[in-house]
């Protein structure tokens, strides 16, 4: 559990060097974490497909909130993409929301978004921090429904 938190807390670039990947044919030995993180994997896949990011970080922040351990309900994403050039903040965020429409309507309860152009990322390569939880998810029926959806 602690290892997973530390893994989530570390920024993970989308551009993992080929040498660190297992051989393609041995799918049984693919990244052992991804099998246990289906929502995170789906978010990563969809954002990559929709926005072709130069840099992508997907952080599961569920452990920072009043939800059971192992939940995939609260996420922070940092997307750096040329697709955002010329778009306002709200337009950029709507693109991200659209890409993740299915996850947001089923199991993802909170999504913090940073959407930067490559130039903006170059001049300020930092990830914002989420504010401390105030316990609102506890006893919230809507969140319970989403957690159940995530477990299926």
């Amino acid at each position, binding site marked *: 559990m602690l290892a997973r938190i530390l893994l989530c807390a570390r920024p993970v670039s989308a551009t993992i060097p080929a040498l660190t990947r297992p051989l393609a044919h041995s799918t049984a030995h693919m990244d052992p974490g991804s099998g246990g993180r289906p929502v995170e994997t789906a978010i990563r896949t969809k954002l990559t497909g929709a926005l072709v990011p130069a840099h992508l970080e997907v952080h599961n922040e569920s452990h920072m909130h009043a939800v059971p351990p192992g939940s995939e309900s609260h996420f922070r994403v940092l997307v750096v993409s040329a697709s955002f050039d010329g778009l306002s*903040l709200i337009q950029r*965020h*709507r693109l991200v929301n659209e890409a993740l429409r299915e996850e947001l309507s089923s199991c993802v309860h909170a*999504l*913090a978004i940073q959407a930067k152009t490559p130039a903006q990322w170059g001049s300020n390569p930092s990830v914002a921090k989420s*504010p*401390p*939880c*105030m316990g609102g*998810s506890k006893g919230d029926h809507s969140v319970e429904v989403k957690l159940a959806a995530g477990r299926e």
Partner: protein
Amino acid sequence: MNHLIRASVRCLRAGSTAGYPSMLLPAGPVSFTAARLLCAATDMQQTLGEMVKKDKVVVFIKGTPAQPMCGFSNAVVQILRMHGVDDYAAYNVLDDQDLRQGIKEFSNWPTIPQVYLNSEFVGGCDILLQMHQSGDLVEELNKMGIRSALVEAEKESK
């Protein structure tokens, strides 16, 4: 909310499918409930349209400004407080599930908190925070005739 209750009662009194083309609704006893639900949802959208116009600054949050129930909602409250904006409408979505679902449809935005400035949807916590950091929020408030406390504070320090 009284408006919503009155509107729903109006629908009930008017009969099962009054005002709705019969082709839109399934036949039989279900149609009355469906009509009532459709009526309520439509009224909610109309009510929200009025709510976001009634005040210059309108936020939909979890909890209240005095007691936010979510870190992101609290961030919105704190940012407004920093700018000295204390006269704004704050609606607690935890009080009303129809409001909670309705505002997500109205704004076409999947999460709470949601911020409206001058009847226009601005975004959530992340966007408000970036606007605050970039100075855009001071400018937007200024356009609405609201002088940010941070501008005053900066002048005093010079």
